[in-house]
């Protein structure tokens, strides 16, 4: 019998989380700032005002720095698939292959081609073609993100595929189901719109710094006006897509929603916990109260989940132990079927090795009846299906709180910029500088909710993380964890210094940078 070393699994998860969070510092800035560049340059082309050109070139320089810093940070994730997650990598290769190949093509041809025109083409190509190139970089960058998010969306809601019992691979049956899965589309729209807000906050932060220093005042005010409008519009989409994502999660990942809410016992007409402190000692199935303190909004969770204020929202206990009255199948029951699937998978392969065709066919047919519950067959206890409730709960609230505050900040900037009274609002400008870091926290929190809420699944319902990992020693994974941590922190420090230097130089000292 194989042994799962949980310490090795946890280190592999920690390494992937660290790498992904590092990568995610830079990607949303590319997504958002690329569109802001396109807006700035459009204003230059429409008005003919050279100040917009100077402004665009400055932000383009920072865009280039961010792009260079972010380059290859995602590649480590692919390396980790092959090393730490080899079982998972094998099993999903057919599903991920198409989206990641398309992503590579988009990234290389669209971004690389138009990227070069964007940087080299000032005064060498026509204004219109240069503007078109800048827009194509923005579109290309965001379309690249689509394919990665399609892959991640499939992990959360595996559709359009069939498990091949002979090769142990999930084989794509319907590309369009994978591409247009509600989870994939929801992730793409929510992630990119949050990237737009992130980019807006970066521009506001840097511009606020210039205003505090009394430098590049007109450029800073112009940048803030455009970024604030962009940030406000993006926030509307973030809120709308976030709501839609929660609605989708309620259908396909109800345990994630229950964990996000700290909801143990389901209710009809379920309230949303707006503000709360969880009881850290609370366990599934016990009588302890779930919260030490909670302020709830009546019926809101039922509306969010099911668009029906009277509807039932299952809690962790319903999902673990089942609730026949509400037609909720519990993990306990799924585990029975899952263990049957695992047993039939073994029986099938034993029969094939022995050349017993009849038994192999019988085992395959029996496997097919329970294939949808395969992953549950690897759980030891029903409670293992519960993700870390505290982390999901607080990360969700952090994300929503900041996601509510930051658009209000954008509105404040827009109002005072319109009135031309920003210079006198030092407190707001300092808040503006801090806003980008708050945006980083909000953005990272969102991913924590998405990925921690998915636990224990590498592929929802089909493959738990403990089975997805490679057969490695914990020491091996620890070594690569610390190598990555040291190396990329060192690079990050060096790269951020380049970014800060370019910000300090500002837009007017062109003699220091002939590229702009």
């Amino acid at each position, binding site marked *: 019998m194989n042994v799962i*070393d949980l310490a090795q699994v946890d280190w592999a998860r920690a390494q992937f989380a660290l790498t992904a969070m590092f990568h995610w510092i830079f990607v949303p800035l590319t997504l958002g700032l690329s569109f802001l560049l396109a807006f700035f340059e459009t204003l230059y082309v429409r008005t003919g005002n050279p100040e917009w050109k100077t402004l665009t070139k400055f932000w383009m320089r920072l865009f280039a720095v961010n792009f260079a810093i972010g*380059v290859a940070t995602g590649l480590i994730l692919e*390396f980790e698939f*092959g090393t730490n997650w*080899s079982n998972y990598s094998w099993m999903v290769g057919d599903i991920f292959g198409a989206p990641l190949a398309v992503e590579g093509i988009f990234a290389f041809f669209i971004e690389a081609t138009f990227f070069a025109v964007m*940087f080299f083409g000032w005064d*060498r190509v026509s204004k219109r073609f240069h503007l078109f190139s800048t827009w194509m970089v923005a579109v290309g960058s965001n379309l690249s993100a689509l394919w990665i998010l399609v892959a991640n969306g499939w992990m959360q809601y595996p559709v359009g595929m069939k498990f091949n019992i002979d090769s142990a691979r999930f084989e794509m049956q319907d590309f369009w189901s994978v591409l247009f899965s509600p989870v994939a589309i929801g992730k793409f729209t929510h992630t990119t719109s949050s990237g737009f807000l992130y980019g807006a906050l970066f521009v506001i932060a840097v511009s606020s710094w210039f205003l505090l220093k009394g430098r590049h005042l007109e450029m800073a005010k112009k940048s803030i006006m455009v970024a604030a409008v962009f940030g406000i519009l993006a926030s509307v989409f973030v809120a709308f897509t976030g709501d839609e994502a929660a609605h989708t999660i309620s259908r396909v990942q109800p345990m994630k929603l229950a964990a996000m809410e700290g909801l143990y016992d389901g209710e009809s007409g379920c309230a949303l916990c707006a503000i709360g402190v969880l009881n850290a000692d609370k366990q599934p199935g016990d009588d302890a109260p779930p919260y030490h303190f909670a302020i709830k909004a009546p019926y809101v969770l039922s509306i969010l989940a099911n668009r029906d204020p009277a509807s039932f929202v299952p809690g962790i206990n319903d999902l673990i132990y089942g609730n026949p009255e509400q037609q909720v199948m519990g993990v306990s029951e799924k585990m029975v079927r899952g263990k049957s699937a695992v047993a039939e998978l073994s029986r099938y392969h034993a029969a094939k090795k022995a050349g017993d065709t009849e038994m192999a066919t019988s085992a395959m047919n029996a496997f097919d009846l329970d294939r949808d519950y395969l992953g549950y067959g*690897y759980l030891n206890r029903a409670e293992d299906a519960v993700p870390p409730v505290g982390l999901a709960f607080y990360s969700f609230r952090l994300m929503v709180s900041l996601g509510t505050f930051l658009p209000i900040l954008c509105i404040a900037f827009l109002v005072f910029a319109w009135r031309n009274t920003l210079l006198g609002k030092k407190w707001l400008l300092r808040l503006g500088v801090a806003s980008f870091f708050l945006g980083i926290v909000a953005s990272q929190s969102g991913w924590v909710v998405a990925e921690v809420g998915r636990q224990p699944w590498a592929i929802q319902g089909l493959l738990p993380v403990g089975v997805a990992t490679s057969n490695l020693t914990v020491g091996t994974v620890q070594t690569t964890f610390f190598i990555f941590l040291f190396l990329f922190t060192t690079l990050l420090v060096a790269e951020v210094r380049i970014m800060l230097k370019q910000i300090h130089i500002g837009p007017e000292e062109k003699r220091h*940078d002939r590229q702009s």
Partner: protein
Amino acid sequence: MTEGLPVFTLPRRIYYFYRDGFRAMRLGRTLWTLVLIKVFILFAILKVFFFPDLLHTRFATDQQRADHVLEQLQPRHRSDG
């Protein structure tokens, strides 16, 4: 320099575009140096020594890889040590 030339010189114009663009870079050179250093570290050091693709290094054929993964999908017990 290349304005007004026949269309068949388009590849040459593209070449000059990139050549002149790269030559004019200042900040871009620093950034490119950074990118190349990182790519080198990733592919020549990390990938080779620390992040091998296990299934491709340990097994020669897809059948062997499938057999290994199927073996991993056998029922397991947990070790919390």
